[in-house]
């Protein structure tokens, strides 16, 4: 279904948060998205009708829970065109990347000692690799950002060498909104036999992801940025690679056979899913994906781009606003600073008009340091946002500017 402003107003009604918070203008979707009724109902429904632990139960209720869980895995698997052994459920993107950073040494060849990231990584795709570099005495390198806030592909070409063990890059920046040319970078990395990891936390709700087409080795995303609940994330990995990795968490559910002395581990994906999983959240995430697929990611991103252009125009009209986002090829994230006004003041005063935005370092301190700004105000859009939301933002910003000048 194609989305226009009228349709966006209708879609907003699917999200009870807006009914319960009258007048809320939610522009912090990159932090967490809101949940449609179907997702909320799914969690309630599971608790009321199907709650049991899975795998261990030899009774009808447990079987019902198991069936729902398996269906959910199928839906989530198909969403990124993987196979069912390649999807590992985690808490979120951060946990998925940590899992990798703790296990990946096993598949890195000895002569490779460089980890390549970009200058625009979220802390979650930086800190775990810093720790791996320290443990294994490896070097960290960063692909540069150009003045237009896009990635410098020439620099990428120079930095991907025979020494590169892995390239881990963000699909779309949570600060700048830049959509990175991951296909090109993945293919450059393949030429040098480097492992490729994609942080799709921001992109999964905006861009169709096809892991076969991308040919990345690993990819991670979070449910709660994709209209799903908090506490469920996904790590995709190519089957042959996941089979070579050692388990990350040990315990129940991830074993085949246990004696007092030793254990034999389960096959994929259970090998990486120790302990009772977030069963109802997983099922709810599948509901969120079904909801997104019904609207269509192409329609979602088309409308969001329209909104983004409108927001950009409105902010430019206000004047004296520094913008830190590329104007094209953007995931619908607009970072800015009205001249002479700190992000925290902007967010506090916008909140007075019931407008929710993020301000601060946005979990990317080195990036802000590089851009030489202490803090940034960030507007991040979703398909349930409307032109009127942007108009309110512009009006409120105009008032704030008057107050400070």
């Amino acid at each position, binding site marked *: 279904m194609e989305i226009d402003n009228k349709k966006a107003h209708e879609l907003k009604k699917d999200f009870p948060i807006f009914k319960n918070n009258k007048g809320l203008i939610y522009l912090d979707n990159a932090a967490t998205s809101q949940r449609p009724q179907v997702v909320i109902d799914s969690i309630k429904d599971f608790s009321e009708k199907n709650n049991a632990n899975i795998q261990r139960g030899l009774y009808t209720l447990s079987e019902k829970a198991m069936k729902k869980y398996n269906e959910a895995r199928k839906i989530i698997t198909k969403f990124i065109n993987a196979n069912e052994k390649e999807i590992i459920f985690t808490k979120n993107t951060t946990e998925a990347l940590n899992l990798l950073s703790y296990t990946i040494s096993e598949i890195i060849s000895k002569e490779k000692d460089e980890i390549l990231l970009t200058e625009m990584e979220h802390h979650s795709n930086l800190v775990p690799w810093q720790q791996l570099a320290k443990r294994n005495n490896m070097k960290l390198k960063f692909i540069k950002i150009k003045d237009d806030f896009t990635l410098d592909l020439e620099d990428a070409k120079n930095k991907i060498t025979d020494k590169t063990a892995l390239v881990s890059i963000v699909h779309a920046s949570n600060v700048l909104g830049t959509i990175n040319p991951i296909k090109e970078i993945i293919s450059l990395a393949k030429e040098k036999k480097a492992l490729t990891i994609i942080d799709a936390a921001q992109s999964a709700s905006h861009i169709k992801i096809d892991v076969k087409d991308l040919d990345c080795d690993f990819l991670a995303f979070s449910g709660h940025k994709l209209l799903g609940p908090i506490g469920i994330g996904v790590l995709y990995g190519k089957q042959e690679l996941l089979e070579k990795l050692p388990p990350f968490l040990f315990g129940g559910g991830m074993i085949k056979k246990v004696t007092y002395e030793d254990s034999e581990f389960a096959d994929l994906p259970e090998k990486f899913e120790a302990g009772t999983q977030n069963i109802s959240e997983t099922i709810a995430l599948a509901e969120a994906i079904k909801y997104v697929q019904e609207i269509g990611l192409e329609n979602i991103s088309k409308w969001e781009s329209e909104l983004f252009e409108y927001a950009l125009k409105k902010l430019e009209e206000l004047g004296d606003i520094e913008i830190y986002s590329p104007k094209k090829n953007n995931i619908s994230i607009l970072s800015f600073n009205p001249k002479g*006004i*700190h*992000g*925290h*003041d902007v967010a506090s*005063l916008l909140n007075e008009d019931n407008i929710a935005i993020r*301000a601060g370092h946005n979990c990317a301190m080195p990036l802000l340091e590089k851009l030489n700004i*202490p803090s940034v105000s960030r507007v991040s859009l979703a398909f349930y946002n409307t032109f009127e939301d942007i108009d309110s933002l512009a009006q409120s910003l105009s008032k704030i500017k008057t*107050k*400070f000048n």
Partner: protein
Amino acid sequence: MTSEAGDIYREYILDLYKNPHNFGILENATHKHEEFNQMCGDKIKVFLDIKEGKVKDIKFDGEGCAISMASASLITDKVKNMPAEQIKDLGSQFVLDLMRIPIGTSRMKCALLPLEAIKRALN
């Protein structure tokens, strides 16, 4: 604007943000310290010249929101000539009395950052 944020951005707070007091660097500082607010990226550096146990001069440098910058101006004005030992006992109430605005939990860190920096400089 009726709730908290509307109230905290009073004219004198905004004036202090635009024209801070004691802003700059003290070349002959006997004590200095840089403090960060990780949450919002505020950065403040304080310089103190302590003579015979008293604050002879104090300056601050850095960047931050209106609340942290106004707080820094008001605190540095107030602690001039104060015995260093007395500063160590100052707490959040001291800052709130100076600011005269209702500061909620989310902005308390901003308001307290300058005092924190001064206390650490003296340690």
